[in-house]
Structure formats: C-alpha cells, structure tokens
C-alpha cells in the first residue's frame, strides 16, 4: 500500500496503524539504517532499548522478538528478518562523529550529497510531529552487528552487509517511526557512502493465535497483555 526508496543519507517518517507492517530493505547492503519508534497517540511513550534487551535477556533481536516501550508494552514485533543482525547498543551518529569518520562533507562542496548524520535527521523527522531533541532516545539499528567481548569491549562485525537484507516490523499499536539512512556510528568505512533503504508499508493483518512474537515466552505474553489492554482503552 506504500512503497518508497529513501535515498542515501536521508530521513523518513510515517505513522503506522496497529498491525500494519513496515518492511525495510537494505538495498545496497551498507547497513546504514537507524530507527526510532514512538506511540503515535502519546509520544512520551517511546522505544526503550534497556527494557527491550533486559526483558528479553538478549541484545541480538530477530524474528520472534519485540521492540518494547518504556511502559512495558510492545511497539513493534519483528515478524520477518532475512539478515538476522541488528544492533541495540551503539546508538546513532551525529555531526561530530560523521566529521571524525569522513571529514568535512559540506553542502558548499557537495550540494545534496553533503554528509548527513542520524541525530540531525531525527531532529528533522521528529520536528514534523512536534517532537524535538529532548525526545531523542537510543535507536534500534537494523542490519548491523555489534558484539560485546567478555571484558566488555564493543566490536563491529565486518562483512555481514547483504544487499536485499530485510526486516519486517508489525506495529502493535499506532506508532510513529523515524528512519535515518545514514552510516552506523561504528561503521569503519573509509569513505562516506550510505546506501538506499526501501520502505514498504504493508496491510494490517491480525496475528494468528500461534504468532511467534506473541507466544515467545512468559515475558512476551505479559508484554502483549499490557499492549492489548492499552489498545482496548484507546481503540
């Protein structure tokens, strides 16, 4: 019902109805995608990375897992995932980190190929919804893998970018999504070259009784109980 290609470096934002699905495809395999999610009706409820990884005891999320809000509810379920690697820890780039990594990519020199960063993109995207930098939270970064060494070292996993890798998120309430098509903040690429993201919004389909996300475990059952109770109040 909606199909768009977000150009390299750009941002994109849209609201999704409950059970609509957002499919994001890493067309060029550059892993350049950061994502923020809010409750569209009450944006002070937003994606919470610590609760998401703590409740599920897992920093690597894939199909069957969920993205939780700070109010113990599911914003989005991961219903399909062809690549299997998504980062929950490292956050997103800003002007300083992009400058440090790639140098000066000014509009003066590069016109519309000037270097973009996720923080500015999110400020611009959220601004459309009356939100601002106070509302920025840690992002979910599809297609990238950042591991933790035994003593805590953070390590970027090279060589896993795959053109055509896709992740599909099912909204579990009305959500507001902001996407930044910018380099992952730990991407060691020598030159600035983020890729394109295809964003498709697919029709709402009610989950089946044996839905993998809704039945993943006791924690998921309770998070969905919270979510469905909320939906009864607002729908």
């Amino acid at each position: 019902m909606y199909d768009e290609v977000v150009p390299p470096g750009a941002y994109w934002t849209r609201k999704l109805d409950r059970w609509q699905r957002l499919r994001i495809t890493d067309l060029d395999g550059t892993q350049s995608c950061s994502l923020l999610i809010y409750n569209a009706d009450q944006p002070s409820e937003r994606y919470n990375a610590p609760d998401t990884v703590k409740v599920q005891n897992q920093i690597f999320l894939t199909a069957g897992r969920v993205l939780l809000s700070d109010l113990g509810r599911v914003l989005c379920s991961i219903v399909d995932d062809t690549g299997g690697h998504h980062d929950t820890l490292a956050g997103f780039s800003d002007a300083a980190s992009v400058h440090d990594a790639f140098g000066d990519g000014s509009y003066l020199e590069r016109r519309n190929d000037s270097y973009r960063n996720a923080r500015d993109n999110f400020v611009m995207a959220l601004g459309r919804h009356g939100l601002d930098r106070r509302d920025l939270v840690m992002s979910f970064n599809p297609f990238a893998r950042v591991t933790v060494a035994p003593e805590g070292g953070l390590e970027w996993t090279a060589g896993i970018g795959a053109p055509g890798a896709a992740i599909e998120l099912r909204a579990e309430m009305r959500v507001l999504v902001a996407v930044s098509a910018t380099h992952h903040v730990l991407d060691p690429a020598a030159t600035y070259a983020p890729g394109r993201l295809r964003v498709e919004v697919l029709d709402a389909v009610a989950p089946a009784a044996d839905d993998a996300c809704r039945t993943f475990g006791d924690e998921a059952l309770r998070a969905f109980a919270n979510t469905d109770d909320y939906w009864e109040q607002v729908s």
Partner: protein
Amino acid sequence: MTPLLDEIVRPGEPWTGVILAGQRLRIVDVEGLQAVDTLCYDAHDPVNRYSAANTIRAQRQLFLTTGSTLVSTDGDALATIVDDTCGRHDTVGGACSAESNTCRFGHDKRYMHNCRDNFLIGLARLGMGKRDLAPNINFFMNVPVTADGRLDIVDGISQPGAYVEMQADRDTLFVISNCPQLNNPCNGWNPTPIQLVVWDG
C-alpha cells in the same frame, strides 16, 4: 578535606543534586551489592543529558570504571570516574519500573517500589518529567553480555564499602535512585543504604 556534603540515602529513595565543575562525588556502597541507578544532566541545559550510547562508544567498552567519561547526548563530557574500588558498572540494564516489572516478573509486581518512579519524583523537584528520562547508569550492578548476546542481571561483585568517585567536567545535575528492586539479585535481595560524599576539586 572537609566534605561539602556527606549524606546517607536510604534504599528505595531518590536523591538529586548538582555537582559543580571540578567537584567530586563519591558514591559508597556501604553494605555491598547495592545497585545505584543514576542519571546525569548538564545543569544549565538539562536536555543535554547522559547518553549511554555515546559513553560506551567513546570508550569502546560496555562497562564503566576509572577513566570512563560520562558523555552527553550533545557529545560533551559531564563527569569522569576518577576512582573505583568495585571495578565495573552497568550501562545497558536501565532502570526497573512498574511496567518492566510486570513483563519480567509478573503482574502482581506492578505496585512494588521501582527506580523509574524514584526518577520521576526526583525530576519533578526540578520541573522535569518523563521526557527527560534516558537509559541510566547502574553503579555496582553486574550485567554481563555473552558473545551470543545473552544478557543477565547477576550477582553483584561490590564489597561492603566499595565506592566509585566522579569528578564533574561541567556543572552536572545527578538524579539517583537507590534501587528498591527485590525480584532479582541486583541488590543482593536486600536493598541497603548508600553514602554520598562531595568534595571540592
């Protein structure tokens, strides 16, 4: 040197205060195994707040200890850990809340004391609120992450009297919850007091 402040914070209670640039704040885990949930803000621009992601990225390391700088959302140094007798502190576990407790432990845990509520009480004193909450530091909390991504809040390693000491790089507002969690080992199943000591630099 005579401390500017020497205060006991009982378990389950919030504390707020500004540490001026150059001053040092020591948090003492008096009886050991006590998680201390901590948020930091630029005292003059509280939207510029502690960023767990910027902090761990700057040091390429998940845990905090001596030498770790707490980096803000705008990329500024808020405070630097100058002494640490515990050895490592958590950056990913966040704060307990009524709602996350329902998910993790059951709906009968909704009404238990939790750090999110302490943060809201502390922030309310300052005219701040829920939008100002961010992923926090958990001093003295032990949250290992395995190679395959498994994360657990496990038995603590901080001994009675262990402390962590920070020096403020700029005037920094601290909002602290002395964690009341009783459903996992983050407080050794027995939340206990902490001591806060502030000195001039």
